[in-house]
């Protein structure tokens, strides 16, 4: 008896040792170089802003008050607008991406099997180029006096000789451009697995095409759709490069607000408070979409 339990102890000890030396190096790396820095950043939000933007004692909630818009000159809605703009841009661009990606993913599944990998590749390849370059491409296209801007001016959308960028419109366009592939891929995976017999059954029961779609197709693609929304909406909310290059000062999003506080002579505690807000938003987004994913029977599809 004691023999067995002692060999059990040895095995347990071996297992634990194995677990430790395999998982500890990478875990420690992430703890030291990501968790600690994040905690340091979070702690900064509870400090006071020094003369050079550096965080210092005493502890205070000033940064959060400032984030809510309370400054030396009373309350101003600037930060609130930035937050609402981030939310609006996220919702708008995600919705547009869904509208484009859904039929596109379906179309790919209706094409010849040999063609499909090429088509998917064609959708994904632009996102392999650096996002700074892609934004720069749009800057070129939307600049004043380019043919796109000329057409827009001709149609009366913008004044003559003014570009389509910088503008909130350019940011939305940039976001759609950036995130389209992230929606097409999970939706394509959902369409590829689609059980067509259910659609045929619905048609046999004289369901109208629209009804058959909502009864037999849409529920089957919902897990893919939710996975796509996770992959698009969460990073879109925290986007920095696109609003910075295509947006201009009045189309700033929360990421730009945060980054600006860490530039020379700004306000690190305020930036840290903004980071906390972004972390909370990310967390809420993930939890919410995971819940939805589980409820609609696609829990494991939502990767994150």
């Amino acid at each position: 008896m004691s023999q067995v339990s002692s060999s059990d102890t040895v095995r347990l000890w071996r297992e634990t040792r194995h677990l430790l030396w395999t998982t500890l190096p990478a875990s420690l790396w992430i703890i030291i170089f990501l968790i600690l820095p994040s905690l340091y950043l979070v702690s900064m939000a509870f400090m006071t802003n020094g003369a050079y933007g550096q965080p210092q004692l005493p502890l205070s909630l000033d940064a959060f008050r400032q984030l809510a818009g309370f400054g030396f000159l009373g309350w101003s809605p600037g930060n609130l607008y930035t937050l609402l703009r981030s939310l609006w841009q996220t919702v708008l661009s995600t919705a547009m991406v869904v509208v484009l990606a859904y039929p596109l993913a379906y179309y790919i599944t209706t094409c010849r099997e040999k063609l499909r990998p090429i088509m998917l590749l064609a959708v994904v390849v632009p996102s392999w180029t650096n996002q700074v370059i892609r934004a720069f491409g749009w800057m070129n296209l939307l600049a004043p006096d380019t043919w796109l801007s000329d057409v827009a001016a001709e149609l009366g959308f913008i004044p003559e000789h003014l570009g389509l960028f910088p503008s909130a419109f350019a940011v939305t366009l940039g976001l759609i451009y950036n995130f389209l592939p992230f929606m097409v891929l999970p939706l394509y995976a959902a369409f590829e697995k689609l059980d067509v017999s259910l659609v045929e059954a619905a048609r046999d029961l004289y369901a109208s095409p629209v009804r058959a779609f909502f009864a037999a197709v849409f529920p089957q693609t919902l897990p893919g759709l939710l996975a796509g929304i996770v992959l698009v909406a969460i990073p879109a909310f925290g986007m920095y490069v696109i609003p910075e290059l295509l947006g201009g000062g009045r189309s700033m999003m929360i990421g730009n607000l945060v980054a600006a506080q860490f530039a020379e002579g700004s306000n690190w505690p305020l930036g840290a408070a903004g980071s906390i807000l972004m972390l909370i938003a990310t967390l809420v987004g993930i939890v919410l979409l995971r819940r939805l994913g589980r409820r609609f029977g696609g829990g494991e599809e939502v990767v994150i």
Partner: protein
Amino acid sequence: MSARGIRRPLAVLWWVVMVFLYLPLGVVVLYSFNSVNSAANFAHFSLRWYHRLFNNPQIIDAFWHSILLALISSVIAVLLGTLIGYGMYRHRGRRRLGWIIALIYLPIVMPDIVFGISEMTFFVRFNQLTGLLSPGLGTMIIAHVTFEIPFVALILYSRFVGMDPTLFDASRDLYAGPVKRTCHFIIPAIKPALISAFFLSFTLSIDDFVISFFTSGPESTTLPIYIWGAIRKGVSPEINAIATLMIGAVAVAALLSLALSWRRSSQRQ
């Protein structure tokens, strides 16, 4: 409305989206051959921006920094990520693994701007306290390894799960020691996963801008950071040319992956 009936509008949508996706890149390529520095009109064909590009030591430096950063960080990330991927595989089913999985997902889900800024503030403070880790290639390598580890770990983990578990037992039954088992059995068995993890890390590193931007020092500019600076200052007409070369590299990679997938599918048949 039959399936045939909606295929036509869908095909139109497909081509519209293709134009949408490739137009901005096409414009960059086109204007890199422009003889004048203007986004509004194309004068005539010229290679002058390429000529300037290859005579700009800053750009050449930035290129080598990008490559060096991607190489070193990928090697470290593959080592650490493979180890933890193996650990996760061998001890899967244990309850305590939950926190490791949460840890692994953290770098993926954290907004990159928050990631970059927390690294930056941490390194700045660390440098003030100890004089070590001043912003530069070193800090960038650390940051890149941090966001590459999860991808390596997940690729390797799924490779281990996909392997026949009896192979592990067989190698042990043949009295192979841990070192022999690792060299003659585990590493050859996971080689494809190691290679794809390395390439993914390399690509992620080359592609990253935000995290690099906040952790770099004045001497460690990478290509995306150089391009960013040039765009912001609005002074460098070579940007189109560098960008075109980078797009060209991506196009080559795309063709290679297409050729690979074709070979794979023809082998299967």
